[in-house]
C-alpha cells in the first residue's frame, strides 16, 4: 500500500432502501474494508459524524446490518453558505457465510471508524490433517 498517494474526492453513495424511510433525508453506503484471519472476520467501516449511541449493529440469522445516524449540523451552527457534501444516515447490510460466535462480537468506534470483530466458531477454523503414507 503506497502511503504517499493523493486522495481524491469520492462522492458519497446514496442508497435506495427497500422500504420507505420514516425520517426524511438521504441514506449513504459507508466504505468498508473486510478482512478475514483464521480466527475472525473484521470489518472497518467509515462512518464520520456518527456517535456511539446512534450506531446500531444487528446480527440476525446470517444478516449483519449496520445503521448509523448523523445528527444534522453538529458543531457547525448557522446557515449553509457552501456545501460539497451531505450528511445523513449510513446503512449497509452483509450476509455472512461463516458461523459467528455472537457473544464475542466486539465493536469499537473511534474517530468515525467502526471496527467490528466477528470471531468465527471454532469448528470453522481449518484443521490440517496430515496424510501418512503407508
Amino acid at each position, binding site marked *: 500500500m503506497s502511503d504517499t498517494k493523493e*486522495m481524491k474526492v469520492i462522492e458519497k453513495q446514496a442508497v435506495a432502501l427497500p422500504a420507505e424511510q420514516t425520517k426524511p433525508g438521504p441514506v449513504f453506503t459507508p466504505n468498508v474494508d473486510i478482512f478475514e484471519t483464521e480466527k475472525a472476520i473484521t470489518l472497518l467501516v467509515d462512518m464520520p459524524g456518527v456517535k456511539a449511541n446512534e450506531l446500531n449493529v444487528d446480527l440476525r440469522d446470517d444478516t449483519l446490518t449496520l445503521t448509523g445516524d448523523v445528527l444534522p449540523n453538529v*458543531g457547525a451552527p448557522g446557515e449553509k453558505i457552501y456545501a460539497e457534501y451531505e450528511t445523513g444516515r449510513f446503512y449497509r447490510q452483509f*450476509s455472512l457465510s461463516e458461523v459467528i460466535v455472537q457473544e464475542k462480537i466486539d465493536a469499537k468506534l473511534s474517530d468515525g471508524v467502526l471496527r467490528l470483530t466477528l470471531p468465527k466458531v471454532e469448528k470453522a477454523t481449518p484443521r490440517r490433517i496430515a496424510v501418512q503414507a503407508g
Partner: protein
Amino acid sequence: MIYRTLFGAPSRHFGSSFADVEGMRRQMERLFETYGDRPLARAGAGVFPAVNITEDADAYYVSAELPGVNSADLDLNITANQMTLAGERKILEEAADARYHRREREAGRFSRAVALPGEIDPDNVKARMVDGVLTVTIAKAEKAKPRQIAVQ
C-alpha cells in the same frame, strides 16, 4: 447477493421501482441545486476533503469528514482570506495472515485550500475533531460582523 459479491457495489437494491424513482428525483434536485441560486457546489474543486461552510453572526464554520484521520496528522493553516488543510490518512497494516475481501477505504495524502468568504480574525480560530468530522470555527473580523442600527 450474487451481484454484490461479483461487483462489490452493494449500493443498489433492485426490485423497488418506487425507490428508484425517488433516487432519480433526488438526483434531479441535485442537478438543479447546482445550477440554481442555492450556493451548493457539488464535489467542489474535486479536491479531498469535501468541505461544508456555514456561518452565523460571529463566525464561519468549515467542516470536513475525515474519518480515521489522527489530529496529529493534520496541518491547518490560516491567513487573512484563506485556510489550508493538509494531512495524511493512514490505514494501518493488519495481521500478516489477513485476507482482504473488500478494500474500499482509501489512504493517502491530501491538501486543500479554502477561500474564506469574508474578513476574518486569524487570531481567533478553533479546530475540533469529533467522531471523524473536523470543524474549524473561524471568528469574523470585528468590522465584518453585522451591527444592529437603531432607527431614530
